[in-house]
């Protein structure tokens, strides 16, 4: 295997892992605050559709990204209102968000199927991108990939070193105590869910404006669900999410490798690979931990009402 092949594989791995990284960071944040939002898939789709439409109509990729993030936040607010303020079952509400988002995005995007925009182009950083092996993967990507690095670093710092991170975790571990200490549990949870919405929207923009600059129905292809599995895989730890996202990115591009070696396998069968890997990873994790509760935030998925 020559160097340039490895460089290309790493490049594609990071590229493919980026949307998973973005969604998983957002989902992790909201789960750390105790909210299980199964609507990631729906939020990505709405973000992808709105981002594409805005970029197409407005002629600006930046506008598309802003629209995607705003759309992601907007639909996450519907979820937050029903799940948090109206104290509904979070599992069912998350599913509703995915069903709603799938329908809404297909409805909005219907007129734009088959249109294309000029997507984000790679921006090679001088010198750094010439580092052998990893230079291309880390420093010759497009702007949104760099943004995902920055967001990763930000989440990492916030969760590990700041008071805010501590508050989010306290709310997720024991909302009653956090409430007694004077923290506004619902406010923290609202913000965490909205952050998740924004990240999923951004991931949508990445899909429809950078990865494959076009809109097609169901463009997220299960990435929202894979990202949710990724958070479990990462045991709700930021640094492991990065690792996991790239690992899944690698699993998703294995077929390129196989094709490179001249194996003839149906693309439909290869497309199953990320989902199979997800199941295997879940099995592996659960088997190893036996008790998932050791890692999951204690109040994950539990509704909170201060007057109960």
């Amino acid at each position, binding site marked *: 295997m020559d160097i340039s092949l490895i460089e290309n594989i790493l490049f594609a791995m990071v590229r493919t892992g980026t949307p998973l990284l973005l969604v998983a960071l957002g989902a992790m944040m909201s789960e750390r605050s105790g909210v299980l939002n*199964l609507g990631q898939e*729906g939020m990505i789709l709405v973000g992808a559709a709105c981002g594409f439409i805005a970029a197409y109509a407005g002629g600006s990729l930046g506008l598309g990204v802003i629209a995607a993030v705003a759309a992601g936040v907007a639909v996450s607010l*519907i979820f937050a*209102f*029903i799940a948090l303020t*109206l*104290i*509904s*079952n979070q*599992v*069912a*509400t998350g*599913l*509703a*968000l995915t*069903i*709603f*988002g*799938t*329908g*809404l995005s*297909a*409805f909005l995007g*219907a*007129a734009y199927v088959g249109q294309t925009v000029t997507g984000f182009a790679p921006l090679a950083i001088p010198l750094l991108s010439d580092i052998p092996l990893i230079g291309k993967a880390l420093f010759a990507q497009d702007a949104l990939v760099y943004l995902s690095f920055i967001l990763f670093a930000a989440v990492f710092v916030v969760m590990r070193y700041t008071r805010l991170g501590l508050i989010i975790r306290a709310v997720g571990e024991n909302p009653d105590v956090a*409430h007694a200490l004077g923290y*506004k*549990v*619902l406010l923290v949870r609202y913000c965490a869910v909205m952050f998740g919405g924004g990240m999923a929207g951004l991931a949508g923009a990445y899909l429809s404006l950078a990865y494959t600059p076009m809109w097609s*129905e169901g463009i997220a*292809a*299960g990435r929202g*669900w*894979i990202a*949710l*599995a990724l958070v*479990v895989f990462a045991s709700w730890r930021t640094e492991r999410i990065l690792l996991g996202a790239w690992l899944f990115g690698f699993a998703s591009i294995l077929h390129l490798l196989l094709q490179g070696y001249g194996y003839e396998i*149906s693309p*439909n*069968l290869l*497309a*199953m690979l990320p*989902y*199979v890997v*997800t*199941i295997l990873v*879940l*099995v592996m994790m*659960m*088997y190893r931990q*036996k008790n*998932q509760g050791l890692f999951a935030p204690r109040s994950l998925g539990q509704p909170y*009402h*201060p*007057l*109960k």
Partner: protein
Amino acid sequence: MRIEKRLHDSRLMVYLSPLLALLLTLVSGALLFALLGRPPLASLYTFFIAPISDLYGLSELAVKVTPLLLCAIGLTLCFKAKIWNIGAEGQFVFGALIGGAVTLQLADSEGFWVLPTIILSGAAAGLAWAGIAALLLTRFNANEILTTIMLNYIAVNLLLWAVHGPLKDPDGLNFPESALFASQTLLPVLFEDYRVSIALFIALFMLIVIWVVLTRTLLGFQLRVMGENQNAARFAGFKGKTLVWLLLCFSGAMAGVAAISETNGPVGQLIPTLSLGYGYAAIIVVFMGRMHPLGILLASCLLGLTYLGGEMAQIDQGLPKSITGLFQGMLLFYLLACDLLISYRLVSSSHTKTATIDSAN
């Protein structure tokens, strides 16, 4: 306005909530149509009334109700026991794939056994697909929501592979479709000139079966207890794992039969877009129907109607057919929102005695 917990859950709201949700969905739908520059009331009429204003329309509704109801029957039992099987879609698709393969094999066979074989093969395939999730849950404790969703995507890709490869019609025009099913392998229709088939009777029969199971058997009691209190169930010595296997497999088998009702019914071949999201819509059916047999029958009519309405809106108003998904999503959102009123009530703040606690959040 403030939310206050009721002393007892309101039974009235349990049944009122779906109606309230429907009303809110209709109002939102009218607003949506107005936003799109369409006459709101006329558009609602097109969506919800016009499709079933004649006998043929009603029979088409029954065609949509059949797979929805079959999937929902299985999911009702699962959800009652709090087993979140989101995989009816995948179990449907895999059932269609295997059932379709068997059907193509039996193209030249005649006899009374042909149809039962096909239906059972679809059921067995759906059962097997759900069995994977059951194995992963009971043996490895892998979250069934995520595994069943992943299995959905895997099943869809398997179907795509099959219609692009081994099951592609050799005499077709290279479309990714199987050959048309032979006429004796199709489910008999109930009335000439209408598409509704005997699968509707299977669905209604199974509905009665789960009604009896839920209200008259120990099994029904066990799964209710398990859904309401896992610890109590374990304490009472119910075999949790056996129940998980049983419920998931039953649910998968029902989804498999639902698939046959489509492939060997109105569709008549394997195509890439076999399921129009019936497996997901069935989840809404179960919630709207309050996990009650009669309720899910009514709810599957409503959800079936959203499919017909979407088609009608496309033909009549040039709106994208995907408006169906939008209405389905709204329906579930509003339902979950209205369900608040089952355990809580709204109190105007002026009447409040505990305003200090309230203001903290």
